């Protein structure tokens, strides 16, 4: 190694052994020391070399070290312990980390805390009330997918319903795809699968979030299951409508509860242990699946194309107008009634078409079931006679109609009279008279038919006139006499309100106060039915085109249903089936046209080749007026079909969106968004009901507005004065009067009704719009209906006619119990003089109201629910005002002199 070797390359060093390396190191070191000396004496020339030498020394050392470590590694290869510096290093933090086992250790205390106070999961709101069979995450995706896939299958299958002879020739990709379903049996299987998928989609899309709603129905079902049918039939419910009680068996439609009970017992018999609650929760979705199938059957009666039926089933399954009343947990009469409605119509059409007594009887049975389930049965009771009447007017009287109608009417009326709530109404009230009238009319027609076949036509003419005149006269006379004598009740108020939307507001405020009895707003149609609403007229038009008996039914139903849906939001429900059916007919016709006329192109070429005569003969009549004009291009057709497909997809999206956003939010648990977008749960209702359940006597009577009656009865399990079954208007008005009068007037009322607690809903702090102050005017109106002298709506408005709650509110308003209970102590939340009602954007007076006959018992977290306890009579016989004043430390004024001579005591 020469001195001048200069830079050492690491690569060259690797091949050297240890001795050589040490030697080189020594050399380099001496060279470096020489250079340093030179630097000091500053005689050397190559001072820059110092740097290189130093680097070289480092390189040599590195190699020596590396070699040494390599040897050591070799040496320790199979030894038990490795020196520390040879072990794998990682980072300091990793080396000091706990072992996974240690890291996952949990204290006993923590373990307990976690089991007893697990983190609340609000995403699954219903955990408390019910259970779902499917995990929620699945549902959401499931709600969308089957609908789409079912649709796709249909478009595929549609090819095979109208297989034109040429269709098989073309090698269309769609058709090859669908050529699996060529045979009739395969098509049947496919249809069943599709229907099953639609029913599945209908059920799944209703499972977004679950909360059991009309608690009363659930309570009644529990009673039915626990006590048996006969006890349920004779049930006297002493926990509601205190102190009147409710003859429940005679004032409800038992169909829903009995259905649940039967399912419950059937499952028990099959050794499937299931809680009645789960049945109640899932009944509505299950029946919506059946409704979809019923819609399929009914549509199939209308048109030969069963694709229309499948589409109708799909629409029915996911139309929001129907979902609104049939989400899981919505355990209301409508849950099963819509299925029965559609199914009864199906059986009616079947009976009418075949003139069969069997189908007529089945229709009557189904009608009886419907009557047992829902007060809306009157819709059928009016629609079927109307249909029959229209048919007769069109000159379509037939024995089929006679057999179908009379069978239905006789059996159906008998069946309906078995329900205690209905009783003799079918022969007593005006709503049922059309059905009876048409029944009589049909007998006459049948008789006339017979007479016509028996006597010559001229005699028949005179006979007809005399007979018709006489019957009409006698019938009218009979009706007038029966009505004036009181055998037939005049039209009820509810009926009037269907014709005159302003009627209820004036005469029956209790009906008008319910939001779902309001006239429908236009956007609601689009919201609930989306594109079906514009397809609906097309379908009705197509029915006009054919106009067989069953098409007349659709037309009549469409007119009738549209009118009533316009009058009342709630009746949107009865319109939805016919909209779905008509829209399905329209869509299927469109699709049929644009999918199956794919073939006219080859057909035309075929026609030119040979079978032109055949085609001309086939459409000889139409082709004269309509030359072969149309959209035949593959591109245009696919555009058309594609557009329709996009619409259908959008419809599915809309339905899913509406269901998840509008119809699946439980009214008891409110959800709001915080400024940062996270969800905030407002759970005041359940908090308050739980408070009542735990802190009050079991027979403590709760007075509240009737909206909360069922919830208090169900969740808090306390007797209530009034509830959502608004059968006694006077009792509700009494509560309204107590709420809207001053304390001096209300207190005796509350004492008389043995009220222990008063519950009010107050949204002022949170800006919750559904509170009692906003409903207050309805209370006033309902009370005024019974006591016009004591309660006066006008006095609740300011002199300028405004409804205010702030300092300028009228005196009556400020003294009313409702106002006082709502704003009692509310001022204390704010700095003096700055109390604000956030709901009504009103600044409240500086001094809040004072209460003397009530004391505040509970106020929920967000002040939504406030509960007051009614004080007992004063122990010392004072009135509450002076007792309260005394408690506050005011001295009683000696009023003897001011009042003039003292009233003398007389024993």
């Amino acid at each position, binding site marked *: 190694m020469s001195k001048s070797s200069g830079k050492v390359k690491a690569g060259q060093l690797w091949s050297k052994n240890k001795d050589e390396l040490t030697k080189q190191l020594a050399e380099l070191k001496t060279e470096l020391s020489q250079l340093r000396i030179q630097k000091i004496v500053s005689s050397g020339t190559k001072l820059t070399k110092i740097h290189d030498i130093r680097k070289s020394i480092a390189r040599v050392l590195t190699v020596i070290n590396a070699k040494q470590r390599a040897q050591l590694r070799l040496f320790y290869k199979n030894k038990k312990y490795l020196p520390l510096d040879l072990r794998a290093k990682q980072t300091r933090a990793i080396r000091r980390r706990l072992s996974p086992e240690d890291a996952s250790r949990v204290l006993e205390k923590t373990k307990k805390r976690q089991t007893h106070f697990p983190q609340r999961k609000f995403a699954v709101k219903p955990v408390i009330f019910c259970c779902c069979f499917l995990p929620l995450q699945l549902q959401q995706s499931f709600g969308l997918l089957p609908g789409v896939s079912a649709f796709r299958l249909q478009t595929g299958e549609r090819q095979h319903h109208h297989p034109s002879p040429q269709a098989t020739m073309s090698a269309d990709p769609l058709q090859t795809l669908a050529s699996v379903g060529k045979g009739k049996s395969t098509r049947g299987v496919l249809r069943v699968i599709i229907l099953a998928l639609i029913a599945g989609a209908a059920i799944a899309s209703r499972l977004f979030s679950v909360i059991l709603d009309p608690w009363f129905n659930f309570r009644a079902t529990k009673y039915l299951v626990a006590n048996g049918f006969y006890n349920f039939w004779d049930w006297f419910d*002493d926990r509601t409508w205190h*102190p009147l*009680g409710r003859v429940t068996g005679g004032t409800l439609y038992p169909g829903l509860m009995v259905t649940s009970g039967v399912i419950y017992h059937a499952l028990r018999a099959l050794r499937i242990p299931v809680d009645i609650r789960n049945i109640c929760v899932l009944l509505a979705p299950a029946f919506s699946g059946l409704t979809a199938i019923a819609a399929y059957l009914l549509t199939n009666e209308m048109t030969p194309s069963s694709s229309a039926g499948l589409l109708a089933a799909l629409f029915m399954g996911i139309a929001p107008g129907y979902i609104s009343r049939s989400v899981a947990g919505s355990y209301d009469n409508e849950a099963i009634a819509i299925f029965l409605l559609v199914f009864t119509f199906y059986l009616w059409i079947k009976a009418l078409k075949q003139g069969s007594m069997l189908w007529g009887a089945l229709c009557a049975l189904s009608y009886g079931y419907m009557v047992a389930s829902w007060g809306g049965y009157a819709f059928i009771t009016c629609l079927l006679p109307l249909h029959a009447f229209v048919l007769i007017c069109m000159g379509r009287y037939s024995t089929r109609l006679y057999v179908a109608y009379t069978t239905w009417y006789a059996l159906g009326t008998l069946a309906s009279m078995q329900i205690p709530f209905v009783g003799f109404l079918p022969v007593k009230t005006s709503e049922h008279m059309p059905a009876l009238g048409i029944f009589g009319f049909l007998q006459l027609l049948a008789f006339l038919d017979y007479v016509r076949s028996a006597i010559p036509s001229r005699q028949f003419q005179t006979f007809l006139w005399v007979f018709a005149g006489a019957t009409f006269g006698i019938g009218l006379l009979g009706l007038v006499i029966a009505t004036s004598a009181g055998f037939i009740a005049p039209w009820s108020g509810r009926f009037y309100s269907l014709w005159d939307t302003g009627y209820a507001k004036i005469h029956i405020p209790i009906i008008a106060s319910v939001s779902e009895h309001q006239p429908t707003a236009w956007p609601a149609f689009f919201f609930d039915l989306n594109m079906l609403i514009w397809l609906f007229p097309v379908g009705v038009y197509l029915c006009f085109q054919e106009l067989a008996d069953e098409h007349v039914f659709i037309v009549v139903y469409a007119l009738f249903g549209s009118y009533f849906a316009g009058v009342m939001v709630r009746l949107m429900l009865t319109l939805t089936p016919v909209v779905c059916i008509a829209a399905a007919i329209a869509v299927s016709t469109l699709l049929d046209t644009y999918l199956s006329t794919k073939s006219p192109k080859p057909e035309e070429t075929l026609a030119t080749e040979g079978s032109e005569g055949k085609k001309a003969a086939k459409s000889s009549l139409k082709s004269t007026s309509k030359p072969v004009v149309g959209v035949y291009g593959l591109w245009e057709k696919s555009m058309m079909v594609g557009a329709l497909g996009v619409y259908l997809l959008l419809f599915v999206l809309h339905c899913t969106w509406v269901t998840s956003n509008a119809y699946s939010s439980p009214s008891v648990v409110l959800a709001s968004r915080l400024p940062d977008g996270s969800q905030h749960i407002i759970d005041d209702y359940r908090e308050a009901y739980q408070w009542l359940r735990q802190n009050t006597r079991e*027979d403590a009577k709760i007075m509240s507005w009737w909206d909360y009656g069922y919830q208090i009865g169900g969740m808090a399990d306390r007797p209530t004065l009034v509830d959502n079954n608004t059968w006694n208007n006077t009792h509700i008005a009494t509560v309204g009067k107590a709420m809207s009068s001053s304390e001096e007037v209300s207190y005796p009322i509350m004492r008389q009704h043995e009220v222990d607690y008063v519950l009010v809903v107050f949204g002022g702090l949170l800006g919750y719009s559904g509170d009692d102050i906003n409903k207050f005017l309805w209370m006033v109106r309902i009370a005024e209906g019974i006591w016009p002298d004591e309660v006066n709506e006008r006095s609740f408005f300011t002199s300028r006619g405004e409804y205010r709650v702030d300092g300028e509110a009228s005196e009556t308003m400020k003294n009313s119990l409702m106002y006082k209970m709502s704003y009692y102590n509310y001022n204390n939340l704010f700095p003096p003089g700055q109390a604000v009602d956030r709901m009504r954007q009103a600044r409240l007076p500086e001094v809040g109201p004072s209460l003397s006959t009530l004391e505040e018992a509970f106020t929920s977290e967000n002040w939504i629910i406030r509960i007051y306890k009614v004080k007992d009579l004063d*122990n010392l*016989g004072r009135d509450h005002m002076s007792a309260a004043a005394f408690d506050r430390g005011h001295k*009683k004024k*000696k009023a003897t002199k001011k009042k003039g001579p*003292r009233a003398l*005591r007389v024993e």
Partner: protein
Amino acid sequence: MRSLFSIFVFVFAAVVSAISTSGNRLLAILDDVADKENYSKFLGDLESRGFQISFETPKSESLALFHLGERNYDHILLFPTRTKGLGPNLTPNILVDFMNANGNILVALSSEVAAPSSLVSLLSELDIQLPADRTGLVVDHFHYDASNAADKHDVLVLPPPKPVRPGIKDFFGTGAGKEEGDDVVLAIPRAVGAALGASELLTPIVRAPRTAYSYNPKEQTEVVDDLFAAGEQLALVSAFQARNSARLVLVGSAEMLQDKWFDAKVTKAADGNKAAKTFNREFAKRVSGWAFNEIGVLRVNWIEHHLDEAGAANESNPKIYRIKNNVKYTISLSEYAWTTWTPFFLPSEDALQLEFSMLSPFYRLPLTLDEAQSSDSASAYSTSFKLPDQHGIFNFKVNYKRPFLSNVEEKNTVSVRHMAHNEWPRSYVISGAWPWIAGVGVTVTGWLAFCALWMYSAPVNGNRETKKTQ
């Protein structure tokens, strides 16, 4: 269960004190504890009846009516004090709380010292008005004691009190206790008269005679221009019973409870200066006995109602009845008389009534004495009746509130249900239904006959018929 429990409690209480039904801890408030010598006989009587008397002055620091929300004493005896108020431990609010917690109070006033303001405002809450400036003196120029107050006429001599109206038990007059003869009188020296309001919880025990009046001896020495009250409107001894049966007695003259008036001989000025013995000691015993729940206490031993129908299961106190059921209601009452529970018998011209009510009474029936169920310590009153034809939640309610008797307000809630579907008479029982039943029979037989006729009469030309139907 509740009545059983209350019996147990009462028995227990009786064993402990053998005296008052509501405990024997008595607090006496005096200006100066030494003053009690003046009342030694009265207090001695109380002690001999089993009361444990603690003496306190209003200013005492240790005086507290409540300890941790529980009463320290069962009764309070307030003698006249010279303090203007009664100190922070006896504010009107505390006294009201004491009464609300079932404590009894006996207040004695004197015309020589002004009534403490605390008492005045307590009494005004009870609708009892004291004279202005808290002082007053009742004088009567006809019924005075000629031997002791010949000049001032401020010692009233009155016959023993009689019930103020018929139908009230006589607890304080001679009729109630042992016969003392007619010549006993009540001496009421230097009394403060109170004017009672119209409250139904108040009853005067002793009213001033028609000729008495009240004036302020300090201000109106010369001429009485503004009369506070006069005649029978002035109550000398009055009783108040709160809704929870807590009692307060206002004795206008503390002096009448003093020893010297217990045995004093007085001369009735009105009766031609006839000498008489005073009734004061016995009267003081009765007044204090009433105030401290030794007499006039009613107890409900048990209440029973049951179905009163032949062949029905006679379950006791069922929760539910049916409309038009026959029902029997019985209530057992006892009255406490000094040491024992005795059967309670209604005063003449009075009635014990049962209300059967929902919102308002449907029935109000007199309860009659049921000898069969009475015993020597309780009397049972019962009635049977048919429930109204109205379903709902009803109350059996006995609301017996009479002066000098503790309040009885008993409410038993039952549901009255409607007829079940199988409880109506069958149609064949109702004679009015026979035409309809006959109609059904006729239709059925007619239909069968028609069918038979139809099936067994061969068609005349069968061929054409079949063709037609086809």
